[in-house]
Protein backbone atom coordinates (compact mmCIF):
# COMPACT_ATOMS: atom_id res chain seq x y z
CA UNK A 1 0.00 0.00 0.00
CA UNK A 2 2.62 2.52 1.04
CA UNK A 3 4.93 1.47 -1.78
CA UNK A 4 2.26 2.31 -4.34
CA UNK A 5 1.69 5.66 -2.70
CA UNK A 6 5.37 6.50 -2.90
CA UNK A 7 5.93 5.57 -6.54
CA UNK A 8 2.78 7.00 -8.10
CA UNK A 9 3.31 10.70 -7.34
CA UNK A 10 6.93 10.76 -8.63
CA UNK A 11 5.69 9.78 -12.07
CA UNK A 12 3.17 12.58 -11.98
CA UNK A 13 5.83 15.01 -10.82
CA UNK A 14 7.98 14.24 -13.85
CA UNK A 15 5.05 14.56 -16.23
CA UNK A 16 3.46 17.74 -14.87
CA UNK A 17 5.82 19.72 -12.69
CA UNK A 18 3.53 22.76 -12.10
CA UNK A 19 0.16 21.19 -11.43
CA UNK A 20 1.55 18.27 -9.57
CA UNK A 21 2.22 19.61 -6.08
CA UNK A 22 -1.39 19.87 -4.90
CA UNK A 23 -2.43 16.80 -6.92
CA UNK A 24 0.39 14.82 -5.37
CA UNK A 25 -0.59 15.91 -1.88
CA UNK A 26 -4.21 14.99 -2.54
CA UNK A 27 -3.21 11.54 -3.71
CA UNK A 28 -1.06 11.17 -0.60
CA UNK A 29 -4.08 12.21 1.47
CA UNK A 30 -6.18 9.48 -0.14
CA UNK A 31 -3.44 6.94 0.41
CA UNK A 32 -3.10 7.93 4.07
CA UNK A 33 -6.80 7.53 4.83
CA UNK A 34 -7.35 4.44 2.67
CA UNK A 35 -6.66 1.79 5.38
CA UNK A 36 -8.94 3.67 7.77
CA UNK A 37 -11.60 4.03 5.09
CA UNK A 38 -11.48 0.33 4.28
CA UNK A 39 -11.87 -0.58 7.96
CA UNK A 40 -14.61 2.02 8.40
CA UNK A 41 -16.51 0.28 5.61
CA UNK A 42 -15.90 -3.23 6.95
CA UNK A 43 -16.45 -2.53 10.65
CA UNK A 44 -19.09 0.21 10.63
CA UNK A 45 -20.86 0.88 7.35
CA UNK A 46 -21.45 -2.61 5.93
CA UNK A 47 -22.45 -4.04 9.35
CA UNK A 48 -24.88 -1.16 9.99
CA UNK A 49 -26.57 -1.68 6.62
CA UNK A 50 -26.68 -5.44 7.27
CA UNK A 51 -28.18 -4.77 10.69
CA UNK A 52 -31.03 -2.68 9.27
CA UNK A 53 -31.70 -5.30 6.60
CA UNK A 54 -31.64 -8.13 9.17
CA UNK A 55 -34.08 -6.33 11.44
CA UNK A 56 -36.73 -6.59 8.70
CA UNK A 57 -36.40 -10.38 8.37
CA UNK A 58 -36.94 -13.46 10.52
CA UNK A 59 -33.37 -14.66 9.88
CA UNK A 60 -32.05 -17.29 12.28
CA UNK A 61 -28.46 -18.51 12.14
CA UNK A 62 -28.52 -21.81 10.24
CA UNK A 63 -32.14 -21.45 9.12
CA UNK A 64 -33.17 -22.85 5.72
CA UNK A 65 -35.43 -20.02 4.62
CA UNK A 66 -35.58 -16.37 5.56
CA UNK A 67 -38.54 -14.11 5.00
CA UNK A 68 -39.07 -10.38 4.82
CA UNK A 69 -41.44 -9.56 7.68
CA UNK A 70 -41.43 -5.75 7.69
CA UNK A 71 -41.59 -4.14 11.10
CA UNK A 72 -42.92 -7.25 12.88
CA UNK A 73 -39.72 -7.60 14.94
CA UNK A 74 -40.19 -4.12 16.35
CA UNK A 75 -43.87 -4.56 17.20
CA UNK A 76 -43.06 -7.98 18.70
CA UNK A 77 -40.34 -6.42 20.84
CA UNK A 78 -42.66 -3.85 22.36
CA UNK A 79 -45.31 -6.46 23.12
CA UNK A 80 -42.80 -8.96 24.53
CA UNK A 81 -43.01 -8.87 28.36
CA UNK A 82 -39.35 -9.94 28.71
CA UNK A 83 -38.13 -7.09 26.52
CA UNK A 84 -40.40 -4.62 28.28
CA UNK A 85 -39.03 -5.73 31.63
CA UNK A 86 -35.46 -5.43 30.31
CA UNK A 87 -36.34 -1.95 29.13
CA UNK A 88 -37.88 -0.74 32.41
CA UNK A 89 -35.07 -2.39 34.39
CA UNK A 90 -32.48 -0.53 32.33
CA UNK A 91 -34.30 2.77 32.80
CA UNK A 92 -34.58 2.14 36.56
CA UNK A 93 -30.86 1.30 36.68
CA UNK A 94 -29.96 4.49 34.77
CA UNK A 95 -32.32 6.53 36.95
CA UNK A 96 -30.47 5.36 40.08
CA UNK A 97 -26.93 5.55 38.71
CA UNK A 98 -27.17 9.10 37.27
CA UNK A 99 -28.08 11.05 40.44
CA UNK A 100 -25.84 9.03 42.77
CA UNK A 101 -22.95 8.57 40.32
CA UNK A 102 -22.92 12.29 39.55
CA UNK A 103 -23.92 13.64 42.99
CA UNK A 104 -21.47 11.59 45.04
CA UNK A 105 -18.67 12.34 42.57
CA UNK A 106 -19.41 16.07 42.80
CA UNK A 107 -19.34 15.95 46.60
CA UNK A 108 -16.13 13.89 46.65
CA UNK A 109 -14.46 16.15 44.06
CA UNK A 110 -15.24 19.39 45.91
CA UNK A 111 -13.92 17.83 49.14
CA UNK A 112 -10.78 16.42 47.49
CA UNK A 113 -10.14 19.66 45.64
CA UNK A 114 -9.43 21.58 48.85
CA UNK A 115 -7.18 18.84 50.28
CA UNK A 116 -3.47 19.33 49.70
CA UNK A 117 -1.49 16.55 51.33
CA UNK A 118 -4.11 13.80 51.11
CA UNK A 119 -5.37 14.66 47.62
CA UNK A 120 -3.44 12.02 45.70
CA UNK A 121 -4.29 9.35 48.29
CA UNK A 122 -8.02 9.95 47.83
CA UNK A 123 -7.63 10.15 44.05
CA UNK A 124 -6.03 6.71 43.97
CA UNK A 125 -8.62 5.16 46.29
CA UNK A 126 -11.62 6.51 44.42
CA UNK A 127 -10.14 5.71 41.00
CA UNK A 128 -9.18 2.12 41.88
CA UNK A 129 -12.58 0.61 40.87
CA UNK A 130 -12.31 2.28 37.44
CA UNK A 131 -9.08 0.46 36.55
CA UNK A 132 -9.95 -2.88 38.11
CA UNK A 133 -11.48 -5.65 36.00
CA UNK A 134 -15.22 -5.33 36.59
CA UNK A 135 -15.96 -9.01 35.97
CA UNK A 136 -13.50 -10.04 38.69
CA UNK A 137 -14.78 -7.41 41.09
CA UNK A 138 -18.39 -8.43 40.39
CA UNK A 139 -17.46 -11.92 41.57
CA UNK A 140 -16.16 -10.33 44.76
CA UNK A 141 -19.40 -8.35 45.17
CA UNK A 142 -21.38 -11.55 44.78
CA UNK A 143 -19.47 -12.97 47.72
CA UNK A 144 -19.75 -9.76 49.79
CA UNK A 145 -23.53 -9.70 49.27
CA UNK A 146 -23.97 -13.43 49.91
CA UNK A 147 -26.95 -13.96 52.26
CA UNK A 148 -25.05 -16.19 54.71
CA UNK A 149 -21.33 -15.85 53.94
CA UNK A 150 -21.09 -12.14 53.14
CA UNK A 151 -20.03 -9.36 55.50
CA UNK A 152 -22.86 -7.03 54.46
CA UNK A 153 -25.59 -9.33 55.70
CA UNK A 154 -23.51 -10.13 58.78
CA UNK A 155 -23.34 -6.41 59.58
CA UNK A 156 -27.06 -5.93 58.92
CA UNK A 157 -27.88 -8.89 61.17
CA UNK A 158 -25.76 -7.52 64.00
CA UNK A 159 -27.77 -4.29 63.68
CA UNK A 160 -30.96 -6.33 64.09
CA UNK A 161 -32.11 -6.53 60.48
CA UNK A 162 -33.15 -9.72 58.74
CA UNK A 163 -31.32 -11.49 55.92
CA UNK A 164 -31.40 -9.73 52.53
CA UNK A 165 -31.13 -11.70 49.29
CA UNK A 166 -29.66 -8.74 47.39
CA UNK A 167 -29.09 -10.73 44.21
CA UNK A 168 -32.19 -12.89 44.04
CA UNK A 169 -34.97 -10.75 45.50
CA UNK A 170 -36.62 -9.15 42.41
CA UNK A 171 -37.21 -5.89 44.28
CA UNK A 172 -33.59 -5.57 45.38
CA UNK A 173 -31.67 -6.79 42.30
CA UNK A 174 -31.68 -3.66 40.12
CA UNK A 175 -30.93 -1.26 43.01
CA UNK A 176 -28.11 -3.60 44.12
CA UNK A 177 -26.64 -3.69 40.60
CA UNK A 178 -26.98 0.11 40.52
CA UNK A 179 -24.98 0.44 43.76
CA UNK A 180 -22.18 -1.59 42.14
CA UNK A 181 -22.50 0.62 39.04
CA UNK A 182 -22.14 3.73 41.19
CA UNK A 183 -19.15 2.16 42.97
CA UNK A 184 -17.49 1.68 39.59
CA UNK A 185 -18.19 5.09 38.06
CA UNK A 186 -17.75 7.53 40.96
CA UNK A 187 -13.96 7.70 40.60
CA UNK A 188 -14.17 8.40 36.87
CA UNK A 189 -16.66 11.24 37.38
CA UNK A 190 -14.67 12.61 40.32
CA UNK A 191 -11.64 13.10 38.07
CA UNK A 192 -13.76 14.90 35.45
CA UNK A 193 -15.15 17.19 38.16
CA UNK A 194 -11.67 17.83 39.58
CA UNK A 195 -10.57 18.99 36.12
CA UNK A 196 -13.62 21.26 35.97
CA UNK A 197 -12.95 22.61 39.45
CA UNK A 198 -9.34 23.54 38.75
CA UNK A 199 -10.52 25.51 35.70
CA UNK A 200 -12.51 27.89 37.95
CA UNK A 201 -10.46 31.07 38.52
CA UNK A 202 -9.55 31.73 42.17
CA UNK A 203 -10.56 35.41 41.83
CA UNK A 204 -14.19 34.36 41.61
CA UNK A 205 -14.01 32.86 45.09
CA UNK A 206 -12.27 35.97 46.41
CA UNK A 207 -14.93 38.17 44.86
CA UNK A 208 -17.69 35.98 46.32
CA UNK A 209 -15.98 36.22 49.71
CA UNK A 210 -16.00 40.02 49.52
CA UNK A 211 -19.69 39.87 48.58
CA UNK A 212 -20.42 37.93 51.75
CA UNK A 213 -20.35 34.30 50.61
CA UNK A 214 -18.13 33.11 53.45
CA UNK A 215 -19.55 29.70 54.31
CA UNK A 216 -18.51 26.69 52.17
CA UNK A 217 -22.10 26.06 51.08
CA UNK A 218 -22.52 29.70 49.98
CA UNK A 219 -19.29 29.56 48.02
CA UNK A 220 -20.47 26.34 46.38
CA UNK A 221 -23.85 27.82 45.40
CA UNK A 222 -22.58 31.21 44.18
CA UNK A 223 -19.41 30.16 42.34
CA UNK A 224 -18.81 26.41 41.99
CA UNK A 225 -22.25 25.26 40.88
CA UNK A 226 -22.82 27.92 38.15
CA UNK A 227 -19.26 27.58 36.84
CA UNK A 228 -19.41 23.79 36.85
CA UNK A 229 -22.74 23.63 34.99
CA UNK A 230 -21.37 22.46 31.60
CA UNK A 231 -19.16 19.84 33.30
CA UNK A 232 -22.14 18.52 35.26
CA UNK A 233 -24.12 18.16 32.03
CA UNK A 234 -21.26 16.38 30.30
CA UNK A 235 -20.70 14.01 33.23
CA UNK A 236 -24.42 13.27 33.48
CA UNK A 237 -24.58 12.38 29.76
CA UNK A 238 -21.44 10.20 29.91
CA UNK A 239 -22.80 8.47 33.01
CA UNK A 240 -26.15 7.82 31.37
CA UNK A 241 -24.49 6.21 28.33
CA UNK A 242 -22.26 4.02 30.50
CA UNK A 243 -25.22 3.05 32.69
CA UNK A 244 -27.37 2.33 29.65
CA UNK A 245 -24.79 -0.24 28.54
CA UNK A 246 -24.85 -2.18 31.83
CA UNK A 247 -23.90 -5.78 31.03
CA UNK A 248 -20.98 -7.26 33.01
CA UNK A 249 -22.58 -7.21 36.43
CA UNK A 250 -25.75 -8.82 35.08
CA UNK A 251 -23.76 -11.48 33.20
CA UNK A 252 -21.79 -12.39 36.33
CA UNK A 253 -24.26 -11.84 39.17
CA UNK A 254 -27.73 -12.80 37.94
CA UNK A 255 -27.56 -13.95 34.29
CA UNK A 256 -30.90 -12.21 33.86
CA UNK A 257 -32.61 -14.49 36.40
CA UNK A 258 -35.25 -13.37 38.91
CA UNK A 259 -36.51 -10.75 36.46
CA UNK A 260 -33.20 -8.88 36.25
CA UNK A 261 -32.95 -8.66 32.44
CA UNK A 262 -31.41 -5.47 31.04
CA UNK A 263 -31.31 -4.31 27.41
CA UNK A 264 -27.81 -5.45 26.49
CA UNK A 265 -28.21 -8.77 28.26
CA UNK A 266 -31.46 -9.66 26.50
CA UNK A 267 -29.85 -8.53 23.26
CA UNK A 268 -26.98 -10.90 23.97
CA UNK A 269 -29.35 -13.78 24.77
CA UNK A 270 -31.56 -13.32 21.68
CA UNK A 271 -28.64 -12.87 19.30
CA UNK A 272 -25.90 -15.12 20.57
CA UNK A 273 -27.61 -17.77 22.70
CA UNK A 274 -30.92 -18.29 20.83
CA UNK A 275 -29.57 -17.06 17.42
CA UNK A 276 -32.77 -15.07 16.68
CA UNK A 277 -30.75 -12.77 14.43
CA UNK A 278 -33.63 -10.80 12.91
CA UNK A 279 -35.26 -10.12 16.26
CA UNK A 280 -31.92 -9.32 17.91
CA UNK A 281 -31.14 -6.89 15.06
CA UNK A 282 -34.38 -5.03 15.81
CA UNK A 283 -33.49 -4.89 19.53
CA UNK A 284 -30.04 -3.61 18.57
CA UNK A 285 -31.55 -0.76 16.55
CA UNK A 286 -33.81 0.20 19.47
CA UNK A 287 -30.74 0.18 21.72
CA UNK A 288 -28.81 2.26 19.16
CA UNK A 289 -31.61 4.82 18.94
CA UNK A 290 -31.34 5.49 22.67
CA UNK A 291 -27.55 5.61 22.71
CA UNK A 292 -27.51 7.96 19.69
CA UNK A 293 -29.97 10.27 21.37
CA UNK A 294 -27.63 10.44 24.37
CA UNK A 295 -24.31 10.57 22.53
CA UNK A 296 -25.16 13.27 20.00
CA UNK A 297 -25.22 15.69 22.90
CA UNK A 298 -21.95 14.24 24.11
CA UNK A 299 -20.21 14.46 20.73
CA UNK A 300 -21.26 18.08 20.28
CA UNK A 301 -19.90 18.90 23.70
CA UNK A 302 -16.69 16.95 23.11
CA UNK A 303 -16.06 18.80 19.86
CA UNK A 304 -16.45 22.13 21.65
CA UNK A 305 -14.31 21.10 24.56
CA UNK A 306 -11.38 19.99 22.43
CA UNK A 307 -11.49 22.97 20.06
CA UNK A 308 -11.55 25.32 22.99
Amino acid at each position, binding site marked *: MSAAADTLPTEIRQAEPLLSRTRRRQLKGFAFVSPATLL*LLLIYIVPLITLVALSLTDYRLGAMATQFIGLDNFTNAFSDPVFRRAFTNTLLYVAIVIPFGVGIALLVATLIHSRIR*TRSFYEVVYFLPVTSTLVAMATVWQFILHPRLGPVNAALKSLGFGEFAFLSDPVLIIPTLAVIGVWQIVGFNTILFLAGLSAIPRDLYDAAHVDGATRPLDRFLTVTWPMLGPTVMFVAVTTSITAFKVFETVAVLTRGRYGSEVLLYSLYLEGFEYFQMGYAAALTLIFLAFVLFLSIGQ*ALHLDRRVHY
Partner: protein
Amino acid sequence: MSDKTGFLAPSTYSRLLPHAVLMTGALFMLLPFYWMLLTSIRAPAEIFNVSLWPIPQSFHALENYAAATQTVPLFRFMLNGVIVCLGILVVQLLVAIPAAYALAKLPFPGAKLFFSLVIGALCVPMQVLALPLFIGLAWADLLNTYFALMAPFLLSVFAIFLFRQTFKSYPDEIIQAARLDGMSEMAICWRLVVPSALPAIAAFAVFSIVAHWNDLYWPMIVISDMRLAPPPLGMLFFADAESGTNYGALMAGAAVLTSPLVICFLLARRQFIEGITMTGVK
Protein backbone atom coordinates in the same frame (compact mmCIF):
# COMPACT_ATOMS: atom_id res chain seq x y z
CA MET B 1 -24.17 18.61 64.04
CA SER B 2 -24.85 22.15 65.24
CA ASP B 3 -21.78 24.23 66.03
CA LYS B 4 -23.13 25.45 69.36
CA THR B 5 -23.91 22.15 71.05
CA GLY B 6 -20.68 20.36 70.13
CA PHE B 7 -17.59 20.54 72.32
CA LEU B 8 -15.27 21.09 69.34
CA ALA B 9 -14.71 24.52 67.90
CA PRO B 10 -16.48 25.14 64.54
CA SER B 11 -13.15 25.38 62.73
CA THR B 12 -12.18 21.90 63.94
CA TYR B 13 -15.51 20.62 62.64
CA SER B 14 -15.00 22.13 59.23
CA ARG B 15 -11.52 20.61 59.12
CA LEU B 16 -12.58 17.14 60.21
CA LEU B 17 -15.93 16.81 58.47
CA PRO B 18 -14.50 16.59 54.91
CA HIS B 19 -12.08 13.88 56.04
CA ALA B 20 -14.86 11.96 57.76
CA VAL B 21 -16.98 12.03 54.59
CA LEU B 22 -14.06 11.15 52.31
CA MET B 23 -12.89 8.31 54.56
CA THR B 24 -16.39 6.81 54.72
CA GLY B 25 -16.55 6.83 50.93
CA ALA B 26 -13.01 5.46 50.71
CA LEU B 27 -13.95 2.50 52.93
CA PHE B 28 -16.85 1.71 50.59
CA MET B 29 -14.54 1.96 47.56
CA LEU B 30 -11.94 -0.31 49.15
CA LEU B 31 -14.31 -2.87 50.71
CA PRO B 32 -14.29 -5.28 47.72
CA PHE B 33 -10.50 -5.12 47.39
CA TYR B 34 -10.07 -5.74 51.11
CA TRP B 35 -12.53 -8.63 51.13
CA MET B 36 -10.99 -10.16 48.00
CA LEU B 37 -7.45 -10.14 49.41
CA LEU B 38 -8.60 -11.25 52.85
CA THR B 39 -10.59 -14.21 51.51
CA SER B 40 -7.76 -15.20 49.19
CA ILE B 41 -5.50 -15.88 52.20
CA ARG B 42 -8.06 -17.50 54.51
CA ALA B 43 -8.64 -21.22 55.00
CA PRO B 44 -11.88 -22.56 53.44
CA ALA B 45 -13.29 -23.53 56.85
CA GLU B 46 -12.85 -20.01 58.23
CA ILE B 47 -14.92 -18.49 55.44
CA PHE B 48 -18.06 -19.72 57.16
CA ASN B 49 -17.07 -17.76 60.24
CA VAL B 50 -18.37 -14.38 59.12
CA SER B 51 -17.39 -11.24 60.95
CA LEU B 52 -16.56 -7.81 59.65
CA TRP B 53 -12.93 -7.75 60.70
CA PRO B 54 -11.84 -11.37 60.87
CA ILE B 55 -8.26 -12.20 61.69
CA PRO B 56 -7.14 -15.26 59.71
CA GLN B 57 -6.43 -18.18 62.05
CA SER B 58 -4.14 -19.90 59.57
CA PHE B 59 -2.38 -18.52 56.54
CA HIS B 60 -3.81 -20.26 53.48
CA ALA B 61 -2.61 -18.02 50.63
CA LEU B 62 -0.38 -20.62 48.95
CA GLU B 63 -3.12 -23.25 48.85
CA ASN B 64 -5.72 -20.81 47.51
CA TYR B 65 -3.53 -19.29 44.79
CA ALA B 66 -2.29 -22.76 43.78
CA ALA B 67 -5.88 -24.03 43.63
CA ALA B 68 -6.80 -21.05 41.45
CA THR B 69 -4.04 -21.69 38.92
CA GLN B 70 -4.88 -25.41 38.84
CA THR B 71 -8.61 -24.97 38.27
CA VAL B 72 -8.24 -22.63 35.27
CA PRO B 73 -5.25 -21.47 33.19
CA LEU B 74 -5.00 -18.02 34.84
CA PHE B 75 -1.69 -17.12 33.22
CA ARG B 76 -2.94 -18.21 29.83
CA PHE B 77 -5.87 -15.78 30.27
CA MET B 78 -3.45 -12.97 31.01
CA LEU B 79 -1.22 -13.90 28.07
CA ASN B 80 -4.32 -13.82 25.85
CA GLY B 81 -5.16 -10.40 27.28
CA VAL B 82 -1.66 -9.13 26.47
CA ILE B 83 -1.71 -10.55 22.92
CA VAL B 84 -5.15 -9.13 22.15
CA CYS B 85 -4.55 -5.70 23.72
CA LEU B 86 -1.16 -5.22 22.04
CA GLY B 87 -2.40 -6.51 18.69
CA ILE B 88 -5.36 -4.13 18.79
CA LEU B 89 -3.25 -1.17 19.89
CA VAL B 90 -0.58 -1.64 17.21
CA VAL B 91 -3.09 -1.84 14.35
CA GLN B 92 -5.14 1.04 15.78
CA LEU B 93 -2.04 3.27 15.81
CA LEU B 94 -0.83 2.17 12.36
CA VAL B 95 -4.24 2.93 10.83
CA ALA B 96 -5.29 6.00 12.80
CA ILE B 97 -2.06 8.01 12.76
CA PRO B 98 -1.76 8.39 8.95
CA ALA B 99 -5.50 9.06 8.67
CA ALA B 100 -5.34 11.72 11.37
CA TYR B 101 -2.27 13.27 9.73
CA ALA B 102 -4.07 13.45 6.38
CA LEU B 103 -7.08 15.09 8.02
CA ALA B 104 -4.91 17.61 9.83
CA LYS B 105 -2.26 18.46 7.24
CA LEU B 106 -3.03 17.00 3.80
CA PRO B 107 -6.22 18.56 2.42
CA PHE B 108 -7.87 16.09 0.04
CA PRO B 109 -11.31 16.03 -1.63
CA GLY B 110 -13.76 14.16 0.57
CA ALA B 111 -11.91 14.94 3.79
CA LYS B 112 -15.05 16.55 5.20
CA LEU B 113 -17.15 13.49 4.38
CA PHE B 114 -14.54 11.18 5.89
CA PHE B 115 -14.39 13.26 9.05
CA SER B 116 -18.17 13.33 9.46
CA LEU B 117 -18.22 9.54 9.09
CA VAL B 118 -15.61 9.39 11.86
CA ILE B 119 -17.75 11.61 14.11
CA GLY B 120 -20.82 9.52 13.31
CA ALA B 121 -18.99 6.29 14.08
CA LEU B 122 -17.92 7.76 17.43
CA CYS B 123 -21.56 7.60 18.51
CA VAL B 124 -22.03 3.92 17.59
CA PRO B 125 -21.18 1.57 20.46
CA MET B 126 -19.40 -1.67 19.68
CA GLN B 127 -22.38 -3.72 20.91
CA VAL B 128 -24.43 -2.45 17.95
CA LEU B 129 -21.96 -3.88 15.43
CA ALA B 130 -21.58 -7.19 17.24
CA LEU B 131 -24.40 -9.04 15.49
CA PRO B 132 -23.37 -8.51 11.82
CA LEU B 133 -19.67 -8.84 12.67
CA PHE B 134 -20.41 -12.15 14.41
CA ILE B 135 -22.31 -13.42 11.35
CA GLY B 136 -19.42 -12.36 9.10
CA LEU B 137 -16.82 -14.06 11.26
CA ALA B 138 -18.97 -17.20 11.52
CA TRP B 139 -19.26 -17.35 7.72
CA ALA B 140 -15.52 -16.92 7.35
CA ASP B 141 -15.07 -19.69 9.93
CA LEU B 142 -12.97 -17.37 12.10
CA LEU B 143 -14.75 -17.76 15.45
CA ASN B 144 -12.51 -18.84 18.34
CA THR B 145 -9.42 -17.07 17.00
CA TYR B 146 -7.31 -14.16 18.20
CA PHE B 147 -8.28 -12.39 14.99
CA ALA B 148 -11.97 -12.57 15.92
CA LEU B 149 -11.16 -11.05 19.33
CA MET B 150 -9.36 -8.11 17.71
CA ALA B 151 -11.35 -7.56 14.50
CA PRO B 152 -14.03 -5.05 15.62
CA PHE B 153 -11.46 -2.84 17.35
CA LEU B 154 -8.80 -2.58 14.65
CA LEU B 155 -10.16 0.82 13.68
CA SER B 156 -10.41 3.33 16.50
CA VAL B 157 -12.39 6.31 15.24
CA PHE B 158 -11.69 7.88 18.60
CA ALA B 159 -7.94 7.70 17.94
CA ILE B 160 -8.43 9.42 14.56
CA PHE B 161 -10.49 12.13 16.21
CA LEU B 162 -8.05 12.66 19.08
CA PHE B 163 -4.87 12.60 16.96
CA ARG B 164 -6.35 14.95 14.37
CA GLN B 165 -6.86 17.53 17.11
CA THR B 166 -3.31 17.03 18.36
CA PHE B 167 -1.64 17.02 14.92
CA LYS B 168 -3.46 20.19 13.90
CA SER B 169 -1.45 22.21 16.40
CA TYR B 170 1.86 21.08 14.83
CA PRO B 171 3.42 24.13 13.10
CA ASP B 172 2.88 24.20 9.33
CA GLU B 173 6.20 26.03 8.76
CA ILE B 174 8.19 23.02 9.93
CA ILE B 175 6.22 20.72 7.63
CA GLN B 176 6.78 23.09 4.67
CA ALA B 177 10.50 23.23 5.41
CA ALA B 178 10.69 19.45 5.64
CA ARG B 179 8.87 19.13 2.31
CA LEU B 180 11.37 21.52 0.68
CA ASP B 181 14.15 19.36 2.12
CA GLY B 182 12.64 16.47 0.20
CA MET B 183 11.21 14.52 3.15
CA SER B 184 8.31 12.28 2.14
CA GLU B 185 4.91 12.83 3.76
CA MET B 186 5.24 9.42 5.43
CA ALA B 187 8.53 10.48 7.02
CA ILE B 188 7.11 13.86 8.09
CA CYS B 189 4.18 12.09 9.70
CA TRP B 190 6.12 9.41 11.59
CA ARG B 191 9.44 11.15 12.28
CA LEU B 192 8.33 14.75 12.99
CA VAL B 193 4.67 14.90 13.94
CA VAL B 194 4.29 11.63 15.87
CA PRO B 195 7.18 12.27 18.29
CA SER B 196 5.69 15.65 19.14
CA ALA B 197 2.34 14.00 19.94
CA LEU B 198 3.67 11.26 22.23
CA PRO B 199 1.69 12.38 25.31
CA ALA B 200 -1.59 12.10 23.41
CA ILE B 201 -0.55 8.75 21.96
CA ALA B 202 0.43 7.46 25.41
CA ALA B 203 -2.92 8.60 26.84
CA PHE B 204 -4.73 6.81 24.04
CA ALA B 205 -2.65 3.66 24.58
CA VAL B 206 -3.71 3.54 28.24
CA PHE B 207 -7.33 4.08 27.27
CA SER B 208 -7.24 1.35 24.63
CA ILE B 209 -5.44 -1.23 26.77
CA VAL B 210 -7.69 -0.72 29.81
CA ALA B 211 -10.84 -0.89 27.67
CA HIS B 212 -9.88 -4.11 25.90
CA TRP B 213 -8.30 -5.85 28.87
CA ASN B 214 -11.60 -5.41 30.74
CA ASP B 215 -14.05 -6.07 27.89
CA LEU B 216 -16.40 -9.00 28.35
CA TYR B 217 -19.17 -8.53 25.78
CA TRP B 218 -17.31 -9.32 22.57
CA PRO B 219 -15.09 -12.16 23.90
CA MET B 220 -18.24 -13.79 25.30
CA ILE B 221 -19.68 -13.81 21.78
CA VAL B 222 -16.77 -15.09 19.69
CA ILE B 223 -14.83 -17.28 22.15
CA SER B 224 -16.05 -20.58 23.56
CA ASP B 225 -12.59 -22.19 23.76
CA MET B 226 -11.25 -21.53 27.27
CA ARG B 227 -7.64 -21.46 26.04
CA LEU B 228 -8.34 -18.27 24.06
CA ALA B 229 -10.25 -16.43 26.78
CA PRO B 230 -9.03 -12.98 27.82
CA PRO B 231 -9.10 -12.22 31.60
CA PRO B 232 -12.79 -11.22 32.05
CA LEU B 233 -14.11 -14.21 30.10
CA GLY B 234 -11.64 -16.43 31.94
CA MET B 235 -12.99 -15.10 35.23
CA LEU B 236 -16.50 -16.01 34.10
CA PHE B 237 -15.38 -19.56 33.23
CA PHE B 238 -13.71 -19.77 36.63
CA ALA B 239 -16.82 -18.59 38.50
CA ASP B 240 -18.85 -21.22 36.62
CA ALA B 241 -16.33 -23.98 37.33
CA GLU B 242 -16.22 -23.13 41.03
CA SER B 243 -19.95 -22.43 41.43
CA GLY B 244 -19.42 -21.23 44.96
CA THR B 245 -17.56 -24.14 46.50
CA ASN B 246 -14.07 -22.72 46.96
CA TYR B 247 -14.32 -19.00 47.59
CA GLY B 248 -10.69 -18.75 48.65
CA ALA B 249 -9.47 -19.93 45.24
CA LEU B 250 -12.08 -17.84 43.42
CA MET B 251 -10.97 -14.67 45.21
CA ALA B 252 -7.32 -15.56 44.58
CA GLY B 253 -8.15 -15.85 40.87
CA ALA B 254 -9.96 -12.50 40.91
CA ALA B 255 -6.95 -10.92 42.62
CA VAL B 256 -4.53 -12.34 40.04
CA LEU B 257 -6.62 -11.26 37.03
CA THR B 258 -7.28 -7.73 38.24
CA SER B 259 -3.73 -7.14 39.53
CA PRO B 260 -1.87 -6.23 36.27
CA LEU B 261 -3.92 -3.11 35.58
CA VAL B 262 -4.12 -2.10 39.23
CA ILE B 263 -0.33 -2.40 39.59
CA CYS B 264 0.23 -0.40 36.39
CA PHE B 265 -2.21 2.19 37.70
CA LEU B 266 -0.39 2.52 41.02
CA LEU B 267 2.97 2.85 39.20
CA ALA B 268 1.84 5.36 36.54
CA ARG B 269 -1.00 7.11 38.34
CA ARG B 270 -0.98 10.37 36.32
CA GLN B 271 -0.81 8.71 32.91
CA PHE B 272 -3.59 6.30 33.85
CA ILE B 273 -5.97 8.93 35.14
CA GLU B 274 -5.26 11.13 32.12
CA GLY B 275 -5.56 8.28 29.63
CA ILE B 276 -8.89 7.07 30.94
CA THR B 277 -10.56 10.40 31.62
CA MET B 278 -9.12 12.85 29.03
CA THR B 279 -10.33 10.45 26.39
CA GLY B 280 -13.70 10.72 28.12
CA VAL B 281 -15.84 8.71 25.70
CA LYS B 282 -16.29 5.13 26.77
